[in-house]
């Protein structure tokens, strides 16, 4: 009798929790793969295609599906490190096949030479080039990701990739040289007479 009560009680419990779990799995279903979003958030969003995918999101999907995470030259080692931490994979050196890590650059159109062919506008993955047919084009510097994709289609080679210059806003002090080094800044009040 006791056994029976116990069995019935356990069965009832199992049924209740089973129903609860079943309900929850339907109700709280997660659409898409959240890992893809997390990977996409780490990728630098240059949309340059150097990884062999047509944009950062497709590469994020590919990484989630098992592709190597060391094919992003604009992100460099930092991105690889962050991806390794996120995915619990080993750190890999940057795959040289896809390019080398470089300083940040933005496209610059030598406007005198531009013939207004709109080819670069079509190539830009983030719509950062403005202009119209037969009219000079120019790059919205703040929106340019430095992906290089506009350089190749230009028939007159008037696009340069120039390194991003440091501004008063982006400048900050260097990390001090550390133990044994003489720092730039020093508060010397105590040495005063």
């Amino acid at each position, binding site marked *: 009798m006791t056994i029976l009560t116990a069995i019935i009680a356990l069965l009832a419990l199992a049924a209740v929790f089973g129903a609860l779990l079943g309900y929850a799995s339907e109700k709280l279903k997660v659409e898409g793969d959240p890992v893809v979003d997390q990977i996409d958030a780490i990728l630098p969003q240059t949309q340059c295609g150097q990884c062999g995918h047509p944009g950062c999101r497709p590469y994020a999907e590919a990484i989630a599906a098992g592709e190597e995470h060391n094919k992003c030259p604009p992100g460099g080692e930092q991105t690889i490190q962050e991806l390794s931490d996120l995915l619990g994979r080993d750190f890999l050196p940057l795959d040289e096949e896809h390019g080398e890590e470089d300083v940040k650059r933005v496209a610059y159109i030598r406007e005198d030479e531009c013939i207004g062919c709109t080819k670069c506008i079509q190539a830009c993955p983030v719509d950062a080039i403005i202009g119209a047919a037969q009219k000079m084009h120019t790059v919205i510097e703040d929106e340019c990701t430095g992906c290089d994709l506009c350089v190749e289609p230009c028939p007159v080679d008037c696009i340069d990739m120039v390194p991003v210059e440091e501004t008063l806003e982006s400048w900050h002090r260097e990390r001090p040289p*550390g133990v044994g080094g003489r720092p730039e800044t020093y508060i010397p*009040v105590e040495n005063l007479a």
Partner: protein
Amino acid sequence: MLSLLRGKREPIHDFPGGIHPPENKARSTAAPIRPGPLPHELVLPLNMHVGAPARPVVALDETVLKGQLIAESQGRISAPVHAPTSGRITAIEDRPVQHPSGMTATCIVLEPDGREAWAELEYRPDWAATDPAALLEQVRHSGLAGLGGAGFPTAVKADPGEDTRIEQLIINAAECEPYITADDRLMRERSPGIIRGIRMLAHLLRPDEILVGIEDNKPEAIQALRSAAEGTDIEIRVVPTRYPSGGEKQLIQLLTGKEVPAGDLPARVGVICQNVATAYGIYRYLEHGEPLLSRITTVTGDAVSHPGNYEVLVGTPVKDLLACAGLDADRLGKLVTGGPMMGFTLPEPAAPVVKTSTCLIASTPEELPEPPPEQPCIRCGACAEVCPANLLPQQLYWYAKNDEFERAQQHNLMDCIECGACAYVCPSHIPLVQYYQYAKGEIRNQEAETAKADRARQRFEARQERIERQKAEKEARRRERREAQRRKQEAAPSGDDGTRSDAAVQASATSAGGGSAASGGSDGSGSGNGDDESRADERARRMKQLKVTYNKANKQWKQAQAAFNKAQRDGADNLDQLSANVDKLRTRADEARAELDALVQEAKTDVEAATGRDLKTLKKEATDAELAARRKAKEVQAAREAGATEQAQSLEREHEQLRQDADDKAAWLKRVMEEQGMKEDE
């Protein structure tokens, strides 16, 4: 000290930490405020304040008067710039500014003419009777920006928003940083003006209490302020001398016991804090109409022979000011701007004095020697004891050193006020503040990068979506067109259409002089329904090709003709050959032209076959409809102007119909022409 505190109604609260560095103030307080030099040029950076840089409103070579606006503020958090003296604008260009990097920024360069001719000024002696909102708008044009060194636009600070009640207005007269005595001298000499300025600020903010916080190392200034404030509701609160009691958050905590939440503004706890020199600036502006043209800057250090406070025109190059103070260039070691604790070494003495320049220290090498080498942290904890923001400097140091920025942020790195107390007490001479500045800069840059990446992602996704949509729309249009064609073919007896097209094709083939495979797909045109579509497409393609051929041949022919003419003039001997070439090209161009014409003709015939009307009629109809619609629009306009509302309304309805008709006809014409592979110009 205690004697000064005696008799206060309110107890003074406390803030954590703090240090007592040697003050070195006596040197520069001895002499009264002296006028600064009138240099041969004034350099006025467009961003002397926190926020968006001002936008120049003067042109090159323009003559300006003293006090004239030369750059207006841009956006809410910004401040205008005025000409500190009369003269000529000689340049608007990048010049070195006071920045630890020694980088340049856009500046307006003014060459003084020495006349000191004033522009017309706007006085506000009736400020007490003016509505605070209007007065605030006025203050926006004063160019005032936190003269204590932070440079936050005063008008923005004095406008905490409608629903924020200000309990305390605090005037910061602490001047806790060693060496600096600019505010001290100002208070000793110009207290009545300061008190009037404070009352103006109070008029703007309507606080419950007005408190002036001043350190007890300035007895003369305290005395001067007290006597000036006699009979007003302004309370002078004397606080013990301890660095950094003049930090905004520290002073608020000292005087009210309130702590400003991390990452928030003092207005959040009902407090507004303004510098004492700023209050004086407001007085000068409202009662005398003078915008911010000059400021009091302390010049001190062993390398100058006349240390003291100078009333310097904004934009005066630092080197001119130093020369005026009797700089001995041979003895000059480091040139520090902004005080020894929070200031920095000025890499470029050509940089100008700006609105935030409180102090210049021209030191000798003995006075400010080279820093000793950094030694390992011994975890003594002295830094944590003196931190006025209650942070853990040692933890922050480890995180900054190892680039663990996320951890540093978790330990509230961003709340560090960079006062330098920790670095001052560090027995290992670790430049802690530099580590924090490095980490903060990196964090800010990373945040900017993340924001940019997010924007790039959005733009990329929007673009992908647009491309997809356009593709789908194009596909839908094509399908629709095919459908319409099919229906038309089913409705009309197909034989008729077919023969006509066939005839047209044959005609074109003949007139093209048996040229290359003209109008491909011609044989199929009569039989299938979908072929019409492909035939039109094919024709459009062919027409384009022919146009290119024709243009090319025509150009070549013209060139050949020119070459031939030249040869004839020169009497060259290959005339025959050239002439043959000309003829050949001529024929080629003619052939292409003929074929093109035939194709256009054929397309026109097709249009007629498909619509029952020829292209000319269609065009005329479209134009007529357009004209009628426009005429009606004019009538509507006339009726409206005449005041006949009802008539206008009925006319309006008619106009809408006509407009619709005209648009339909135009669209139809366009579609027919597109379908037949013709462009508008044919």
